[in-house]
């Protein structure tokens, strides 16, 4: 009859870790009953297990919780005012977008800039009065019997020279890209940072 091979180190380890399936465990048990060598090896490994499991816990000599709480609180305070706070970041991105939009409008439509500067200046009613003036002029023209076609052609529409019309397309394209990028940043910021080391 052939002497069965000794149990491998892996099997002995898994035996003690109770990681062997029922069938493999039964096979190992059978072998251990008949083999002093493997029984001795198992006993040696088992001794290491009990040494490790018997390692005493040591007391912690001071309470670390106040330190932890303090640093959590100061960290929260710092984050409230920093760019890592999503609310602050959202505000900054929106502000940049608004300023950018105003700058674009100003570039392609200088009259709008005049309106804004008038609105911000002493005559806050500037744009409104300009509209009223225009309305008054139209009603006067109508009342004096000017032909309607002449009136239409005299309407003062914001002038966009052809040179700036192509600039307008470029700028709108740039603005669209900037908008997408900044929203991408915001979305990324909302996703919790994942770390493989602690799943």
């Amino acid at each position, binding site marked *: 009859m052939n002497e069965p091979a000794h149990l491998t180190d892996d099997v002995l380890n898994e035996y003690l870790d109770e990681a062997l399936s029922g069938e493999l465990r039964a096979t190992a048990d059978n072998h251990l009953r008949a083999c002093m060598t493997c029984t001795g090896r198992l006993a040696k490994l088992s001794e*290491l297990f009990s040494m490790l499991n018997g*390692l*005493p816990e*040591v*007391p912690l000599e001071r309470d*670390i919780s106040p*330190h*932890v709480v303090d640093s959590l609180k100061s960290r929260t305070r710092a984050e409230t005012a920093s760019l890592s706070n999503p609310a602050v970041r959202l505000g900054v991105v929106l502000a940049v977008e608004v300023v950018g939009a105003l700058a674009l409008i100003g570039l392609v439509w200088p009259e709008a800039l005049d309106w804004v500067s008038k609105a911000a200046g002493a005559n806050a009613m500037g744009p409104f009065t300009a509209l009223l003036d225009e309305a008054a002029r139209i009603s006067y023209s109508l009342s004096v019997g000017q032909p309607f076609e002449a009136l239409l052609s005299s309407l003062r529409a914001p002038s966009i020279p052809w040179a700036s019309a192509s600039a307008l397309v470029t700028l709108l394209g740039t603005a669209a890209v900037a908008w997408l990028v900044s929203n991408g940043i915001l979305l990324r910021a909302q996703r919790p940072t994942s770390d493989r080391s*602690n*799943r």
Partner: protein
Amino acid sequence: MDPPSDYDLAVHARRGDAEAFGELVRRYQTSVFNVCYRMMGNRQEAEDMSQEAFIRAYSRLATYDTERPFGPWIRRVAANFCLNRLASKAPINMPLMDEHETVHTPHERNLELATETAERARAIRHAMADLPPHYLAVIELRHFQELSYNEISYTMGISLSQVKSYLFRARKLLGEALKEHE
């Protein structure tokens, strides 16, 4: 009034209540400190690492399943944290700075036994300190946190066969080191 449960404290901490988290720290600091002590090998470093592990855990509370016990989770976080620190260090071993084991058997009759126990504990800690970081981590998770192979694989982000080979080789090294010590 009953003291708040771990569950309640964790839920509050998640909403940003640092004081609630502080209470969890008080409850688990000793076991977390022991994880760090076994892995770092000296008390001062273990204390620092415990604090940092808790601070890190706070920012990861979103990944903690409040339906599960807090203790095992925070101990796993601490073990991983120590592993990362050890693995990022140069492969020289930190010296064991404090060698004394505190043994709580003040009775005279137990003194001899206590000395023997302390001696043995010192030998085990020495042997553990000489292990490569990943070997040490699987020993910590298997023997002290009693995780299964699958749980270790999941916690450390390594394969099942890596878990087994690290664990078995670590035990071999420990066995040899302790035999030398005898």
